[in-house]
C-alpha cells in the first residue's frame, strides 16, 4: 500500500458554510477518482463555535481524522481559527486563509483579547500563506454568504483537478436558484490566486 494520502483541514466558525465547502471538496475528489473520507462534528459546537472538517484523499484512506502535524493544507475561513489550527499543519504545508475576523464570545464581551497582528503571526509561521479577501469578493459576486465558494475557488488552484469537475460538482450540489452567484463566487476566488498553466 502506497502512502499517497493527502490531508486538507478546514477550520472556521459555525455558520460560515464550512460543511458545504467540505462536501463539495470531497465530492469533486471522488469524481476525480480518489478514495475519500471526511469527518466533522455537528450539533452543539455548531452554535457559533469553532468548526473543523477533515478531508483525506488518496488511493486508500484509513483514518477519517488527520493527525496533528500532518495536514498538507490548512484551509482557514477565519483568522483566529486559522491560527488556532496551525499546529495541525505539516512542515512545508500550505495555508489558505480568509482575511476575516469573527470575534468569539469572550472577546465580544470584553473578557478576552483577539490576538494582535494575527496575519503577521500566521505569515511568520507560514511565509507563503495565501490570504484571500473572501468577504469582499463574495460581496462582488452578489451575496456575502458565498464566502465559502470564493475560498473554495482559491483553494482549487492548489489541487490538480480539472475545472470541468468543479463545475459539475457545484452544479449538482448547489440549489438551482443560488447557482449563478455561487459559480461566480468560485471563479472570483480562483482568479484571486496566481494561476499556473496546468491548473487553468
Amino acid at each position, binding site marked *: 500500500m502506497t502512502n499517497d494520502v493527502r490531508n486538507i483541514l478546514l477550520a472556521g466558525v459555525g455558520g460560515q458554510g464550512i460543511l458545504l465547502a467540505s462536501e463539495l471538496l*470531497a465530492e469533486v475528489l471522488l469524481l476525480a477518482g480518489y478514495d475519500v473520507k471526511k469527518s466533522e462534528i455537528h*450539533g452543539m459546537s455548531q452554535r457559533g463555535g469553532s468548526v473543523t472538517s477533515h478531508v483525506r484523499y488518496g488511493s486508500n484512506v484509513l483514518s477519517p481524522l488527520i493527525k496533528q*502535524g*500532518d495536514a498538507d493544507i490548512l484551509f482557514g475561513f477565519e483568522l483566529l481559527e486559522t491560527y488556532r489550527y496551525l*499546529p495541525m499543519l505539516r512542515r512545508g504545508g500550505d495555508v489558505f486563509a480568509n482575511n476575516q475576523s469573527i470575534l468569539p464570545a469572550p472577546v465580544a464581551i470584553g473578557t478576552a483579547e483577539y*490576538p494582535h497582528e494575527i496575519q503577521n503571526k500566521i505569515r511568520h509561521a507560514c511565509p507563503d500563506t495565501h490570504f484571500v479577501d473572501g468577504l469582499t469578493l463574495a460581496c462582488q459576486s452578489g451575496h456575502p454568504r458565498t464566502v465559502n465558494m470564493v475560498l473554495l475557488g482559491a483553494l482549487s488552484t492548489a489541487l490538480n483537478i480539472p475545472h470541468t469537475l468543479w463545475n459539475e460538482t457545484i452544479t449538482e450540489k448547489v440549489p438551482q436558484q443560488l447557482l449563478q452567484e455561487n459559480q461566480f463566487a468560485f471563479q472570483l476566488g480562483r482568479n484571486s490566486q496566481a494561476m499556473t498553466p496546468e491548473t487553468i
Partner: protein
Amino acid sequence: MAKRLMSGNAAIARGAYEAGVKVASAYPGTPSTEILENLINYLAVDASWAPNEKVALEVGIGASFGGVRALVTMKHVGVNVAADPLFTLSYIGVRGGLVLACADDPEMHSSQNEQDSRNYAKFAKVPMFEPADSEEARAFTRLAFDVSEQFDTPVMLRSNTRISHGKSIVNPQEPVAELPQAGLVRDPAKMVMLPANARNRHPLVEQRIVDLEAWACEQPFNRVETGSGKVGVITAGIAYQYARQALPQAHILKLGMVYPLPKQLILDFAARCDTLYVIEELDPFIEEQIRAMGIRVIGKELIPICGELTPERLETALFGTKPDAAVIHSESLPGRPPNMCAGCSHRGVFLTLKRLGAYVTGDIGCYTLGFLPPLSAMDTCVCMGAGISNATGLIKAVPEQERHKVVGVMGDSTFLHTGINSLIDMIYNGGRGTVILLDNRITAMTGRQENPGSGYTLAGIESPPIDLQALCRVLGVKHVQMIDPYDLTQTEQVVQQEMARPELSVVIAKRPCILDRRHGPEPAPPLKVIEEQCSACKICMKLGCPALTWQQEHNTPKAHIDPQLCSGCKLCQQLCKFTAIEVHND
C-alpha cells in the same frame, strides 16, 4: 449502482431501506439524528419521530410483532431510556427483524457522558455489529435484519460520531426482493412476558448467544488481515482504521460483530502472535472478555480509556511519540465556545433568571447554553427531563428561605420526552417549585426536528400540536402563565411573581426558534448603536448576544451591533437606559 460518498447515518438508512424496513422510529439525538432524516426519503418506509427513545423502541417492537422489519435509532444516552423494553425484547425475540442503531459520542462533542453502548449488548444478551466506515454501516445494517430473524433476536448496531458524521464511499445494492407477509399472529408463549413464559424464554436467550458465538467464527464480517512478524491486533469499528494506519505490518483480527465475540477465531489468532494488542475506544469491552479466555493482551494500560481515540493519541500510546508539527503555540488563544444564536428566544429568560438570583435546575437542549457566561444562569444539568424533578428534590432539601429561588427550566421537546412525568410528580407530591417551559416550537439543538408540539411529523404532514398550557392545566397546575420572552418587562414581572408564590406554577415562554423557518417570526430589521448616546455602561453586553460586540480597541469603547447577525429581537434596546439603540433603517 454507482458508488457514492455517504455519511455513516445516510448509509445506515440505505442499509435499512435495502433490507426492506417498513417501520422506523426514533428520538433525535446527536450524532444519530440524520439516520431517520435520510430514511424518510425512501417512500416505502414509515419513519416517524417518537416523543422519547422508549416509545420509539416500543413502536418498533409492535411493528416486529406485526411481521415487518423495523429500525429504531437513538444516541447512546437514549438507550438508557429505551433499556426497559430492550431487556425484555431480548427474551421475546422478533417476528419481523428489529435493529436498534445507537450512536455513541466519545469525547462528548455534544453529550453529557461518553458511556460505551457495547455494554448494553452484553447486558441485554443481544448481538451487536460495529461498522468501521460508511460501506460497512450500510452492509452491516442490511445484514443485521437477516441475523435478527435467523437467530430470533433484536440486533444492535453501534455507530459513533466519526462513523455517523464522517463520509466515505458506499456501494449501494438493490433492495431485497421479497419479505414475509405482515399480519396479526397470536403467540402468547413468546410474546406475553409474564413469569411463567419468561422463565421458558431465558434459556433460549442463553443458547442463542452460544449459537451466535460459534456462527460468528465463520462469518466474513470477522476477518483476519495477515501481516508479517509476530505482532497482532484485535480491534473493531473506527479504532480499526487508526490501528491499521499506525501498525501497517501487524496481523489484524478485525471484528465486525463486537458481541458475542468469536472465541475460537480469537484463540487461533492469538496463537499466531507473540504480542497481542486490543485497540478499542472507551471501555476495555473486548479486552476483558479476551483476558477471561486466558489470553495475555496489551490494552487499556496503554490505550486511553477516556475520550475519543484519535490517530495521534493511539500513536502516542503505542510508540510514545509526539506529533511533529510545524507550529506549536506558546500563547493561549481565546476560546470559541458555542453560544445561543442572535435572536434566540431563550436569552431573555436566562437574563431574567440571573437578575432575579434564581437557582436554576436545567437539562438537555439549546438552553443548556444558558450555563455559559455572561448569562451563567444554569446551576444543574443531568439528563432529559431532570430540570423539573431535580427542582422537586432540591426544594425538599433546602431551608425554607431558599426554596423560592429554585426554578426548573425545560424545553418543549424535552418536556414531551420525559418532563411530563417529572411535572406529575411535583403536582402529586405537593411540590412548590417554579417551572419554566421554554417553548420554541421545535427540537432545536439537534437541528430543528419536528416534535409532538410543533404541529408537523417527520414526513412534514400536519398533526395536532400538543397544547402545553392546556396540558399543564389538565394535569392539575393551578397557575399557568404565558409570556413572550422577547418582552423583558413582562418576563421579569411574571417570573418574579411566580417565584414568590408559595405554590407550584408553570410559566410557558413561547416564541419560535429564530432558525425555524416554518414557525419563525418574520425577519425584523437589525438594530444599531447610536454611538453619541452610548454611555459605555455595558448592560447590553450581559445578554451575550453574538451580534453585540464591545469595541475595546477604540479610544472610547462603545457597544456595536453587527447588522449581518442582528435578528432585530430588541432585547438590547429594552435593556439600554440611554436610548442608544434604535432600528437600523439604512
